[in-house]
Structures are given as structure tokens and as C-alpha cells.
């Protein structure tokens, strides 16, 4: 890559920073992220496949349900990053330029995360989805009615289309951003702004139907119009938790120390807080309306989650995914304190994982929570894949968009 302080491109050279301070320095421990990630992926996914596929039907059921939770966990984080990047372009944001590259690296994992869904699609559909069995559909008039939508070929086409769209968007926006590191061309900023709005439409539609397909149709009789937004809200929240963790970790590791200020941390904390509240808004709307109308075809979802220990999980979500983090993150000092924000981010990631577990697992374990080895292994594996993709992206380019025309604005940004 050419050094950005050589003049090139059009317009005045934006105030670019010396590259050495802003690239991953040689020998930095983060160079090992891809290796660490791949090792975790091999251990986690290999181990879970071994235990799951050799352990009989029950283990196989467990394997794919756990795999789904793990994949959706990392997918949600990356989708949140894609959303964040698109919104920054659409709104011409200035403050966020210094964290945008980190988000671009997170969304860069999207094409690789598609790989996690390949085994699910090839081997796991029958274990996950009741509607994928022709004999089940035959004996169920409701499933016959839905078969025009819930059938394996169309399902696979939709999944493929979603990943294709996300990957194209993630790659294109990352690439343009990196291109600007070299040329400093302002036209790139304009181009990204122009395309971000249509991209957001595609994002909204794909995420909605992806959530309907991979989560809502686990219980094919149940339906809820808000469900796509529910998944979106939790996912974006988990991304902001990751963004806070990555930004804080980078500073701790001596990266971007002069670039990322408390002000940026504060803003990421605010967005994390906002999406905690937004998730709660979605969750509460869904719960209240279904509880109030009390129609059996809708209450089945919550009835299932009030059995045994699942009801504890639900209560923990209400408290831990909303009440506690809401009040914890409210004060300004917390969002500006690295330790406190890190704690909140880790806690919320755990809560998001519990949320996904609570969405998926009652279909498999109706009697109560039964977390096990396969849950842990698939989670480790999926996080490994994510880490490898993220680490790989991190290595390949500068840690901030070096010549974004609004970088100076971002560097000097203050919360007043």
C-alpha cells in the first residue's frame, strides 16, 4: 500500500496521519488473531461435529441447535457492523470516522460467516425445522398452507440471497474505504453516501426475512410481525458491545491511543445504551401485545418459555438485558470509564447470547434449560471463525480511514 502522505487523488489532501502509528505494528500480538481464531474454530467446530455427529440422534439435534445459536451470535454482531457503517455514510456522520474502520473489519467477517451456515443448510435443516419434513407437512394443514414459503429450495435461495447481498455490501463498502486510504478521493465518500440508502433497504428486508426463516420458523406455527425488528435490535446492540470492547482493547494494546478519545468511547456507549432500550422496546411490545390478546396461536411462544427453568431465563433477560444495564449505562461517567464500559459490554454480550439461546432452545428442550458441552464448543468455534476473519481484516489495512475527508472532524470531536 502506498504511503498515504504522498499526494494523490483530487482535492486538498485531508489531514492524514502518519501510517506507522495507525497500522498494526509488526510483531504486535494482534497479528496472531487469525491463527488464534482458526485454532478455536478448528477445536470448537471440529469437536462439536465429532461429538454431535457420532453421538446419535439426540446429540445431532443438539449439535445443530447449538450451532445455530453460535452462528447467529456472530452473524448478529457482523450485521450490526454493516448497519452501523451504512448509517454513518447515509447520515454523513463525522464523529464516528475513527471507529468506522473497526466496524468495517467486523462486517468484513460476513462472507466468512456464510460458511457457518453451509453445514446448517446441508446437514442441519431436518434436525432444526419441523416444516422441512414432507410427512410432517402432509399431516398439518397449516404447514401445507405455508409450504409456498416454508419449503427447502425457497428457504435455501433466500438464505443464499441474504448472504450474497450482505457480502457484496460488506466487501464493497470496505473496499471503497480502503481505496480512499490510497487516493484520498472525495468522490468515494459521495459514492458511499449515495449507495448507503438503497443498501439500507436491502439490509432491512434481508435481516427481517432471515430472522423469520432461521428463528421464527423453528416453531412454524407461530408468527409475530415485530420479530425481524427484535432480532435486529439485539444484533445491533451486540455489535455496539463488540465495538466498545474492540476499541478499548485496541487502546490497551497501544493502538490508536492518540486517535480514540473518551469522547468516541462515550458515543459508542450511548449507542449501546440506546440499543439496550430499543431491544427492550421491541421485546416488551411483542410480549405485552401477545399476552394481552391471549390468542392461543400466539401465546404458544411464551407458554413454551414459561416452562421450568425457561421462565428463569426470561426473567433474567428482562432484568439483565434491560433493567440493570439501562440504569448502569445511564450516567455519563460510566460510559466514559473504560472498565465500567467494558464490564457492561461483556455483560450485554452474555445477555444477547442468552437471548438467542432462549429463542432457539425451548424448541429442543421443552422441559427446561439444558446447556451443555455442544453449546460451548459451537460457540467457541463460531467465535473463532469470527475472530479469524476480523483479525485478518485488521491486518490488511490501516486501523482508521486515513484519508477520509471528515477524519479531522472526528479526531477533534467533543461531546459538548
Amino acid at each position, binding site marked *: 500500500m502506498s504511503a498515504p*502522505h504522498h499526494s494523490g487523488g*483530487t*482535492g*486538498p*489532501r*485531508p*489531514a*492524514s*496521519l*502518519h501510517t506507522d*502509528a495507525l497500522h498494526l505494528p509488526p510483531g504486535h500480538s494482534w497479528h496472531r488473531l487469525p491463527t488464534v481464531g482458526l485454532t478455536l474454530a478448528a477445536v470448537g467446530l471440529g469437536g462439536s461435529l465429532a461429538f454431535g455427529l457420532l453421538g446419535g440422534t439426540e446429540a445431532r439435534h443438539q449439535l445443530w441447535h447449538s450451532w445455530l445459536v453460535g452462528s447467529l451470535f456472530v452473524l448478529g454482531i457482523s450485521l450490526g457492523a454493516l448497519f452501523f457503517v451504512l448509517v454513518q455514510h447515509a447520515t*454523513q456522520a*463525522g*464523529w464516528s470516522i475513527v471507529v468506522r474502520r473497526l466496524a468495517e473489519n467486523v462486517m468484513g467477517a460476513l462472507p466468512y460467516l456464510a460458511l457457518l451456515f453451509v453445514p446448517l443448510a446441508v446437514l442441519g435443516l431436518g434436525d432444526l425445522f419441523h416444516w422441512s419434513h414432507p410427512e410432517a407437512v402432509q399431516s398439518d*394443514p*397449516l404447514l401445507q*398452507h*405455508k409450504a409456498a*414459503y416454508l419449503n427447502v429450495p425457497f428457504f435455501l435461495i433466500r438464505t443464499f440471497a441474504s448472504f450474497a447481498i450482505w457480502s457484496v455490501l460488506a466487501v464493497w463498502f470496505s473496499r471503497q474505504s480502503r481505496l480512499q486510504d490510497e487516493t484520498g478521493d*472525495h*468522490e468515494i*465518500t*459521495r459514492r458511499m453516501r449515495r449507495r448507503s440508502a438503497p443498501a439500507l*433497504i436491502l439490509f*432491512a*428486508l434481508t435481516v*427481517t426475512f432471515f430472522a423469520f426463516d432461521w428463528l421464527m420458523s423453528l416453531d412454524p406455527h407461530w*408468527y*409475530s*410481525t*415485530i*420479530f*425481524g*425488528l427484535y432480532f435486529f435490535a439485539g444484533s445491533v446492540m451486540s455489535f455496539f458491545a463488540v465495538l466498545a470492547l474492540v476499541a478499548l482493547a485496541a487502546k490497551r494494546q497501544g493502538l490508536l491511543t*492518540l*486517535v480514540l*478519545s473518551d469522547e468516541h468511547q462515550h458515543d459508542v456507549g450511548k449507542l449501546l445504551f440506546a440499543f439496550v*432500550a430499543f431491544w427492550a*422496546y*421491541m421485546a416488551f*411490545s*411483542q410480549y*405485552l*401485545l*401477545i399476552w*394481552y*390478546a*391471549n*390468542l392461543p*396461536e400466539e401465546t404458544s411462544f411464551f407458554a413454551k418459555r414459561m416452562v421450568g427453568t425457561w421462565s428463569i431465563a426470561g426473567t433474567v433477560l428482562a432484568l439483565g438485558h434491560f433493567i440493570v444495564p439501562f440504569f448502569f449505562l445511564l450516567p455519563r461517567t460510566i460510559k466514559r470509564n473504560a472498565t465500567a464500559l467494558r464490564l457492561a459490554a461483556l455483560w450485554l454480550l452474555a445477555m444477547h447470547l442468552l437471548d438467542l439461546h432462549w429463542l432457539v432452545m425451548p424448541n429442543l428442550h421443552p422441559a427446561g434449560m439444558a446447556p451443555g458441552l455442544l453449546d460451548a464448543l459451537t460457540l467457541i468455534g463460531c467465535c473463532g471463525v469470527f475472530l479469524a476473519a476480523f483479525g485478518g481484516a485488521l491486518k490488511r489495512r490501516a486501523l482508521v480511514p486515513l484519508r477520509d*475527508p*471528515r477524519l*479531522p*472532524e472526528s*479526531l*477533534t470531536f467533543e461531546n459538548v
Partner: protein
Amino acid sequence: MATSKGMNGTHTESTPPAGLRGQTVETSHGLADDPDFLDPVGHRPPLILGAPSFHDVTEAVARPLERPPTRAWWACLLASLALLGLLGVSIGWLFWEGIGVWGLNNPVGWAFDITNFVFWVGIGHAGTLISAILFLFRQKWRTSINRAAEAMTLFAVMCALIFPGIHVGRPWVAYWMFPIPNQMGMWPQFRSPLMWDVFAVSIYGSVSLLFWYVGLVPDLATIRDRSKGLRRMIFGAFALGWRSSMRHWQHYEKAYLILAGLATPLVLSVHSIVSMDFATSQLPGWHTTIFPPYFVAGAIFSGFAMVVTLMVIMRKAFGLEHIITMKHFDYMAKIMLLTGMMVGYAYGLEFFIAWFSGSAYEVFTFKNRAFGPYAWAYWTMVSCNVFLPQLFWFKKVRSSLVWLFILSIFVNVGMWFERFVIIVTSLHRDFLPSSWFYFRPSLFDVTTMIGAFGLFFTMFCLFVRFVPIVAAAEVKSVLPQAAAHPNEAPEIEPALPGRTDLLPGGAR
């Protein structure tokens, strides 16, 4: 290339002399072709055109209050008062004769009254979004329009509150809506969303009023200082002894932030609760989980349309073209495009899930909505709310006041029809085909609806006459000279203390 301007100093180069203010952007379709028009990439141009001084802003805002009212204002006021009179007559007749004067029938026990209620509550939402949510998002352009938009909120809430009050049938016991201790031990039904409405809307109204008033205080003091006699005393009383001291500003900023923080969840909750009036029922077409966020998006959509309608007129009437610029309209058009597509998303999802649910009643309701006797209303709604706003994708449309005005009217119409469609189509064909009935509004339905606009515009006419219509103090704070170091470019030095080697081109 236009970006060859530097990081700063552009406001002096690119802005016209004060005499030309307002005309430059107004008719400049040619400029709209420039990719850097309105939002250049290389710098942030000043929001207020014509490089006015602080005093110029004061003059521009205070002048409409200090000059005698124009004929146009009298014409508007009298027309609005006429409509307000119509509202009075309609309500008077309603109270005398009873709910029978409306076109309600057996399955449709709720139609124009509740449609108007939801419509007006929705209109109010844009004001709070602009004053509170955009404040939290640091959208400084909001300062030019927030005062008028918040006033619009208050008047819209007033209009909204009429309808639940008059449709109870026995208006003399309307106070039963409030939980007032009484010897009969009678309480409202706290489990009813209609009850939650009473609390939500009245809290919303109170907080909006408070927020608006807090923002007004510095400007009221400005008017006080410029006037004499009785006027000075009145404005002085409302200015609460404001002296613009550092302490005052410090408290003010804190209060403003806290109120913005309180108003944000409040505005989301109000229309969510309004949506629950319908969504907690078991009626197909009403009961669906996306209703709360969908109603909020629709409310903001309709509210912005109303803001655009009002601002197009207001900026022209009071010569505020340099304060409320085409950039403001561009941003508002984009928000309408976004929220219009959000309601479009909800319309689509409702249909999809109605089919997906496999419930015969759901499927029937939605088929009936799109192809039944009210198809004309449904397609009016879809055209006005989803299809027509797609024109906002074009910069030409966003930078034309004529287009903006026309489209904003269409959106207002469409959003009124949205509530009408939701309410009436779900009711008119209920579970028992023998009771199906087509709702037709009576004369008094229509006069009440139109009359409410009379109240709204009367209040707005009085507002522009007696209250500073632009938040002058806030507008001043976004002028370039209000920055702590107005002549300094946002340099990198502050973020990189002592690291000159990191500056552009290595060492400097």
C-alpha cells in the same frame, strides 16, 4: 472541484452579502446539480446563510413580533377562526343531540373521532423528535425549526385531546377518565389501553409544554429587553428573570438535556400506547405485534409532513429564508422518505404475516382492506404514504419548494387515511356477516374534522404573532462565530498533543 475549498474559511467565500440572503438557494436548481451542493464532503458549511451577525438573527426573529400584524396574517387568522367556529358548532350540536349525529353504525362504533385523535397525536411527534431526539443526535440544523415544530406539537396535542373528550357520549362525566378519588369508589379501568392513553397523552402534553417553555425563556428575555411598557412587563414575567448570565446558561443547558432525555422515551411511548388502543384487541388488522414501532414511524412521518407544510409558508411570510434553508427541507424530505418506507415495510409485513399465519380471519381482513369496499381508501393511503414519497429520492424534488409543499400535503392526507383504513376496514366487516355495514361519514363527522384544523391554525396564527418563532438563542449558537475558536480550522493538534510528526506531510 468544489472541494478545493479548505477546511474552513469557506463561509466567507461562499455566502452572499446580506442583501441577497434567501434568494441564492431559493431558485437555484442549477446548484442542485453540483454534487457538493448542500452537503460538501470536505467541510461543513454554515447552516445559516448570509453570514448574519448575532444581532441580525435577533432582528430577524423579533421583527415579526414587533411590527403590526400584516393583512395576510389577519386573513389567515380570520379563516382559521371561521373553521374554529365550525368546530364549536359541530361540537355544540353533538352535545345537544348526541353521538347519533355522526355516521357511526353498529359494527363501526368508532371512526372519524378516533381517526382524528390518532392523526393529531401523530402530527405532534415530529416536534418532539426535532426538539429532543435530534438534539441527542447533535443535529444542529434542528435549531432553525424546533421552536415552530414544538409549538405545532402542542397545538396538535390540543386538537387530539378534543376527540376522546367528545366521543364519550356523556361529556359531562368526561372527568371520569381521570383517577379522581370519589365516594362511589369508582375508578377507571387501569387495564384498558384507553386509560393508558389518558396518562400518556397528558404527560406528553405537559412535558412538551415544559420543554418548549424552557427553550423559550432566553428568547422571551430578548423580546422583553427590546420592548417597553405593558409588553415589557408581560414578556418580563414569562422570562422568569432571565439575565443571560453564565450561571443561567449552565442551568439552562442542563435542564434542556434532561428534558430532551425525558422527552425521547416519552414520544416513543405515546404513539406506542396509542397503537395499543388497537393492537391489544383480538381484531384482525388491529392485533399485530409490529404496531407500536410502526405507529411511531408513521407519526414522525406525518409530523414532518406537517412541519414542511408550515415551514414553507412561515419562512416566506416572515423572510426567514436564510435561517430555514433548503438544506433543512432536504433533511426533512429525507426523513420523510425514510419514515415513509418504514410504514411501507409495516404495510407489507402485515400482509405477509396475515397470509403466513394461516388464519382465515387475518387473510380475509387484509384482502378486504386492499380489494373490498374501502379499497379506494387503502390505495389512497398506499399511494400517498409509500409511492409518492419515493419522489424524494430525487434531489430536484427535495430542492423544490413546490414539490415539497405538494408532497407534504399528500403525506398528511395519506396518514389521515392510514388511521381511517386501519380503524374502519377492520370494523366494518366483523366476525358476523349479518352485521356488516358500510360506514359513511355524516356532515358533522366532516365538519368536526375540518373544524379541528381551525383550532390548530388559529393557535398557530397566534403563536407566530406573540412568540419568537425561531429559537434565536439556539440559532446563534450554531453560527460560525459562536464556535470557541471561530477562525481556527478543526486541526489535528488537539487530539495529538506534541506529535507534530503525525501532521499532514510529516513534520510541519
